[in-house]
């Protein structure tokens, strides 16, 4: 913004314009956040009708609960494997689709389709497709019985989740990364060609560094996306099982709060998770965001 003072100088109108939206945000975003922090210091009765201030007891309880840490750890594993695959695979596809080849047009279209399929629908489909007896891997199981058992084996269940997450995450990341690739000026490729860099080499030396801002954006957004997508997938595919092996923090908060009526514990976990998210985002911006902010 070059000249601030050439803006409209009305006093009440802008307030009036943002008011409805801010009201909504305060009500449905900030009030719940506040409520979560508030409850994390109280012990709430499930049916209401009594809450007791307990200081940091909830935090002590949650933080000393190994289930919480395990769910946290699983969340991190899911984010790292799921998110990086959900960025890496679209990245590879985008680099491929950026080339002028016959398949790139249909690919640009088809790869966006999953955006129209809800996470829960994806879950229902993948739960069926990865069913050990009737799904795509059933033939494998008939050769090596029990090798694919997502109902018993936590790792298999986890793999199913990630496959479904990546499937649903392709469109958004693909579109952003492709847009980034296409905004690289042609002369940049030409300059590198003159410098002797072949097309393979240019991917590494020119294309990837130049779409770093888009990569950063997808990584940041993928973080929230993985939370949202994970919930729908877990609830429709594994329900957190088997043996809690796919209970990520979001799911744990939901089950603790809704199925377990542990409003205080769930709120405490929410509060902890929020702090974590805010710190993580800040860190992302500090350590990654700053480095890749070059103009063209």
């Amino acid at each position: 913004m070059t000249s601030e003072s050439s803006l409209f100088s009305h006093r009440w109108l802008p307030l009036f314009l943002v008011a409805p939206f801010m009201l909504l945000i305060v009500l449905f975003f900030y009030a719940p956040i506040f409520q979560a922090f508030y409850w994390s210091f109280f012990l709430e009765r499930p049916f209401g009708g009594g809450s007791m201030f307990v200081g940091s007891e909830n935090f002590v309880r949650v933080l000393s609960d190994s289930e919480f840490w395990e769910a946290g750890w699983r969340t991190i594993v899911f984010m790292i494997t799921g998110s990086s695959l959900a960025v890496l695979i679209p990245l590879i596809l985008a680099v491929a689709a950026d080339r002028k080849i016959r398949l790139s047009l249909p690919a640009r279209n088809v790869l966006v389709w999953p955006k129209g399929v809800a996470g829960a629908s994806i879950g229902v489909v993948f739960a069926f497709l990865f069913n050990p007896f009737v799904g795509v891997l059933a033939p494998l199981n008939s050769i090596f019985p029990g090798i694919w058992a997502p109902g018993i084996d936590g790792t298999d269940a986890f793999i199913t989740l990630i496959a479904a997450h990546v499937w649903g995450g392709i469109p958004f990341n693909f579109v952003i990364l492709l847009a980034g690739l296409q905004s690289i000026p042609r002369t940049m490729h030409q300059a590198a060609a003159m410098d002797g860099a072949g097309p393979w080499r240019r991917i590494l030396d020119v294309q990837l560094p130049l779409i770093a801002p888009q990569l950063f954006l997808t990584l940041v957004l993928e973080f929230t996306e993985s939370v949202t997508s994970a919930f729908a997938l877990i609830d429709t595919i594994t329900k957190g099982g088997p043996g809690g092996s796919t209970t990520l923090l979001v799911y744990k908060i939901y089950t603790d709060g809704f199925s377990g009526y542990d409003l205080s514990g769930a709120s405490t976990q929410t509060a902890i998770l929020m702090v974590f998210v805010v710190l993580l985002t800040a860190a992302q911006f500090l350590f990654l965001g700053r480095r890749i902010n070059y103009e063209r």
Partner: protein
Amino acid sequence: ANIEFWYGNTGVVETAIQDQCAAFNAAQSEHHITCVGQGSYEVSMQKAIAAFRAKNHPVLIQFFDAGTLDLMLSDAVVPVQDELPDVKWDNYITGARAYYETSGGKLFAQPYNASTLLFYTNRTELEKAGITKTPETWEEIIEAARKLKAAGHACPFTTDGDTWRVLEQFSARHGLPIASKHNGYDGLDAEYVFNTTVAAKHLQNLVDWRKEGLVKLGSDTKAGNFTAAFNAGECAMMENSSGSYTASAKAFEGKFELTVSLAPMYQGHERHNTFVGGASIYIMKGHDKAEIEGAKAFLDFLRRPEQQMAFTAATGYVPVTNDVMEAIEKSGEASSPKYATAALGIGSMNDPRTPDTRGIRLGFYVQFRQIFMEETQKAFAGEKTMQAALDSAKKRGDELLRRFEQTYKGAKLH
């Protein structure tokens, strides 16, 4: 008045419930009931809690056994016996009353779809493997299972490892405590003890038998669900609620012969009563008189012997009042397969009792069931030994109990 009733069942049971609702609406014109299925007992309960907090709850709601203490202390329900003082509540068999009544003997909820655990076999398949006598003990079941396996049967015995089946019903009929203080009846300061009883041994056995290929869990089966696997003929034997009897009978029709009998004991143990399972109906607070009247009318309607008989016939749930049992006797169809579970179930619930087999009066018990499942699944998956899993379930369960105790500090146990 227009009233609402929430329940958690699906399948044939849901159909039967809806039929009753329709019958009620048809039978009188003063009230109209809308019956809303929530998909499962757990969901129904969590929805109810959420709805109650939002002051959006129905007047009638079906809660399952596991939620009993949570509801008693919730201050969200009115004991049915207070609303309907004139009903002859002692008509209900002791087994059913014990679970839902206060220490003063006042019923909190009206038992509705009462069930208990039974043992089912596919006689056709058993006979194919040369087993002519229905097994009665775990030892016999395993022997039969081995035979079935030898005969090439893929799934001799199936269970889902559900807490109700493998822990609660098992402990009750073997006369074992689940928690101290007589499963919590004597105070909120109870502690879990199941990891030290024979139940622990049994669970370890299940792990071993599964490894051997004799026992399959739901997710081991093709059908993905143990009842479905049994009903489809995939598995030859199962332990299941009486409430799934009709579904099995229907599925077997014309294909297999079904037997149903008392749940198996370990040899050398005295048989005790089983808990009443299934669910009962509560009247929730915060509704006006007209709605309460409607609720009472519906409850009265449900208690009618012919309604109970029809419901039993349609589902396999056990009528837990003495008068209905008599009515069945009198109907002349007592030996009909549609009442097969009635006498059997009542018999099972009426076996000799101890203070540990009255029921379960433990806080946050629904969550404990989750924890128990989660931990035992880890043992089944081979991640830890069953004993370790049970120890950890006890530890986590005790934490729940302590938190419950703290949450309801000052509240008195009814």
